[in-house]
């Protein structure tokens, strides 16, 4: 070891000072930085520290239920279970995924790959299995300690205990998209991804049903795990306000009976309403859909059956589709005739199977003819020749006046979205589309063919107006909905009375005799809507009881003229049988006696 001091002590002293100054300067930088962080910005950082550990958590407001007129549940809130991944748990979460896969018997690689993807792209917990079955949920809960990074959440889920029944009325739910959330979601108190009404009453009465989301503050650590609060004051909460429930005018028993009678293979629609006040008792569109599908994870088959189905189950045939009303329009022509001076006993040239106009035959459905008929008889037999002549005599202007009074060519104003107006050809209409109007056109209009188009809802209300001899109530689905009830002034009650008698004859001696139900008097009118694309649609309008009408019905069954010409009659008869079970009426019995 070399001994002795190798440098002079003065030089050493100088170097020692230099090193000391250097050390001091270096550490002074740290002190200055500390001064900046802790003294100058201390309060800001304190605020950040507080905010980070307190997180605002939204409590979803329970959505209001939807009930039928008797309090049966159509839509309620169930629970949905989801399995989540927390990206903060990193590689651990992937290992947990592999473990979870081995517990529940899934391909491990696939699952851990998905977790890796989630981990790369997100910072807060993400749903790995949305809407998992309860078994998976309980497995995850049970193995919680062995599965770091895997969690679970329970959320509200809309459920429809009656499934398909009434789906077009009740509607369905869908998740708020990112776009919608940005546009109005936050202002209206939604959270991103919350379910919102997408169809039917769920959509129309969204604000009424939704309620107000609440919020609470939770102490969370960096893993987003909820910690026990050290200070209860930290956990102020803002309780949610539950949504209001909605009671409908629908009678689930009638609705279900009709849907059952129709089955899900046909395309059909039916509206039954109380003509005295416009309460809709049943509104059916077939094929229907199961609204529960929308709040679960949809399978490809389910998606295809909803969106790629040529029968379009989401399409509400009762209000969104229009049909040529066919012979059901003969009451309209009859009423127009009665208002233009014709009477019940007015007769025209007798029916020999066809009526010649402008050198061209206009045929009756019965090729060997009906002979000579009066007005009620012509209604009962649905004689075209009679109505060709009546229509021609009445003229378009009188006819269209009656049509407008009976609510055609304009929406009824039902509380559903998407109702169409239909089409009632008027003088103006012909001027605009054909540039001319010839009296020959009137012949077709008079029997409900030609350019007439009406929705089943319009037809139901039309029958209701006839049944009540002029009460024109706006159809509605919500019980307490105050809808306007008008009186038709252009048509006198006496005219209605004649037409009603004609409709009664339809079931007693006319085209719908099979509709008779012992002990009850039913008035009806059959119809056939010509369909240029295929087999004609069978229509039926009816009301009952004859003496004191409390139900008016319109029904269409598509493409059934040859297969089952009585399809519509059978369905409405089934509805009436069910109806009389729950709504007995003494007046009908009195009339019969």
């Amino acid at each position, binding site marked *: *070891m070399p001994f002795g001091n190798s440098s002079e002590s003065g030089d050493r002293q100088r170097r020692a000072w230099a090193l000391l100054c250097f050390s001091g300067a*270096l550490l002074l930088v740290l002190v200055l930085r500390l001064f900046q962080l*802790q003294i100058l910005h*201390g309060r800001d950082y304190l605020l950040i520290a507080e905010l980070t550990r307190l997180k605002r958590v939204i409590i979803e407001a329970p959505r209001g239920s939807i009930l039928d007129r008797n309090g049966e549940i159509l839509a309620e809130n169930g629970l949905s279970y989801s399995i989540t991944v927390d990206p903060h748990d990193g590689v651990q979460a992937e290992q947990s995924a592999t473990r979870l896969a081995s517990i529940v018997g899934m391909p491990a690689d696939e699952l851990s790959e998905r977790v890796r993807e989630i981990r790369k792209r997100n910072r807060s917990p993400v749903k790995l299995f949305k809407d998992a079955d309860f078994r998976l949920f309980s497995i995850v809960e049970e193995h919680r300690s062995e599965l770091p990074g895997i969690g679970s959440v329970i959320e509200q889920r809309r459920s429809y205990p009656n499934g398909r029944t009434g789906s077009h009325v009740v509607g369905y739910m869908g998740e708020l998209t990112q776009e919608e959330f940005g546009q109005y979601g936050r202002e209206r108190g939604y959270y991103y991804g919350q379910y919102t009404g997408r169809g039917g009453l769920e959509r129309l009465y969204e604000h009424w049903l939704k309620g107000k989301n609440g919020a609470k503050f939770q102490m969370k650590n*960096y*893993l987003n795990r909820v910690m026990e609060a050290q200070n209860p004051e930290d956990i102020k909460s803002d309780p949610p306000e539950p949504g209001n429930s909605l009671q409908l005018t629908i009678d689930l028993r009638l609705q279900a009976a009709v849907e059952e009678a129709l089955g899900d293979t046909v395309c059909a629609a039916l509206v039954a309403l109380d003509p005295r006040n416009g309460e809709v008792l049943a509104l059916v569109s077939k094929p229907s859909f199961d609204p529960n599908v929308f709040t679960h994870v949809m399978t490809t088959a389910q998606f295809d059956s909803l969106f790629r189905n040529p029968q379009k189950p989401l399409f509400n045939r009762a209000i969104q589709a229009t049909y040529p009303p066919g012979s059901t329009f003969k009451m309209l022509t009859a009423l127009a005739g009665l208002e233009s001076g014709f009477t019940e006993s007015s007769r025209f040239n007798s029916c020999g199977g066809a009526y010649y106009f402008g050198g061209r035959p206009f045929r009756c459905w019965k090729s060997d003819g009906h002979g000579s008929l009066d007005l009620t008889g012509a209604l009962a037999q649905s004689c075209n020749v009679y109505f060709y002549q009546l229509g021609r005599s009445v003229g378009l202007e009188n006819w269209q006046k009656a049509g407008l009074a009976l609510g055609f060519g304009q929406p009824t104003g039902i509380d559903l979205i998407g109702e169409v107006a239909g089409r009632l050809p008027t003088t103006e209409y012909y001027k605009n589309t054909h540039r001319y109007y010839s009296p020959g056109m009137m012949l077709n209009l008079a029997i409900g063919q030609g350019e007439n188009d009406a929705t089943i809802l319009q037809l139901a209300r039309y029958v209701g107006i006839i049944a009540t001899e002029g009460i024109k109530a706006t159809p509605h689905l919500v019980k307490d909905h105050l809808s306007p009830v008008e009186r038709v002034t252009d048509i006198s009650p006496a005219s209605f009375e004649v037409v009603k008698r004609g409709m009664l004859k339809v079931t007693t001696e006319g085209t719908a005799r099979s509709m008779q139900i012992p002990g009850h008097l039913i008035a009806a009118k059959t119809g056939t809507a010509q369909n240029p694309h295929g087999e004609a649609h069978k229509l039926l309008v009816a009301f009952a009881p004859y003496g004191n009408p409390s139900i008016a019905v319109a029904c269409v069954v598509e493409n059934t003229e040859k297969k089952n010409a009585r399809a519509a009659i059978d369905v409405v008869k089934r509805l009436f049988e069910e109806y009389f079970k729950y709504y007995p009426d003494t007046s009908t019995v009195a009339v019969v006696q």
Partner: protein
Amino acid sequence: MILARIFDRNMERGLVWAVIFLMLIGVLMVHSASQGENMASSDYWVKQALWMVISITVAMGIILVPVKYIYALSYVFYGVMFVLLLLVEIVGTTGGGSERWLALGPVRVQPSEFMKVAIILALARYMSFKKNRPTSYVKVIVPGLFILFPLLLVLKQPDLGTSMIFCALLFPMIYWAGLDSRRLFFLVAPILSAVFAAPFLPWFNWFTWVCFMFLILGVLYYSRYSLPAMGAILGTNILAGIATPIAFGRLKSYQQERITTFINPEADPLGAGYQILNSKVAVGSGGILGKGVGKGTYTEMGFLPKAHTDFIFSIVGEELGFIGTVAVICLFLYIIYRGIMVATSIRNQFMSLAVVGICGVFLFHVYINVGMVLGLMPVTGKSLPFLSYGGSSVLANAMMVGLLLNFSVNRHDF
């Protein structure tokens, strides 16, 4: 004999108390950190207290070792450590993304921690010979080689923090060994030049580099070097400054990204940047007086990973506030000050140089660690001496304190 040594009048008692005080703060802070949600076990502070006892025992043991043995074994120690470092390269185990550990039976050792001690002793021995005094640029080459080989191995692990320490301890030692300040400046200048021009570092860009070039020109003007020498020095610096951005620019984008996150992990907000942000929030939220021991809610909620090891200083900041953090820094400055005073008073060049080297290691450790916690330095995973929880670094620090005290007791011998 032990007592005689420990109560020797040349014993640096103030330094001993400073170290013990820092260690106690360390145990307290590890206790706070282990209350955290994300800690696997909460008895870290007991283990840390145990490490404190081990450290003191090791330091006392080293005080007893005669200086001549230390001197005699210094090259051997260097050789053994170098071999261990090579072994890490071959059979090392991974920890925190890089190979740093060597499994020796049940214990895992980090040879790079002990390599620091070995380098100090070997350099001190080499430069204690008058003929090896670094009085010219040429004579710096051999001491530089002492650093270079371990440096390359450590860089390959990759462990940026330790390689920075290796590099940094050379300069105080060669300065202490006799290199004049002018040469020292021009040795450090190209490194600084490259750093100032680095486009991937925070705050540095061409502007800082131009400023630095003016400084070099000024120093050159007063250096009275010959014109060719001046040109060579200036050229080296300009080359270093220009080469860094160009070399960086020629890299593929993923390579650039890798370097950027290696040097400046704040660029990766989910990774180390998250850590830095949280440590700044933790320190800042402490304010002047701090939230009180055990009341550092931010740390306890588990927002800070590695709170008990590399980020222990953020708990000091949160719980003890500005008063506490400045006190800890002052204690370190005091230790360095006493160390330099010891080095000044030792006649023997080997011991004196070693003490300066030890002080340098402490200084840079503190700067790199605290700078990282405060967001001034890249996240390099260097622990804070005496406070951080951990094995190898605690032992290495204890060895260095032991050596410092040993040399202070024997300052008038030889």
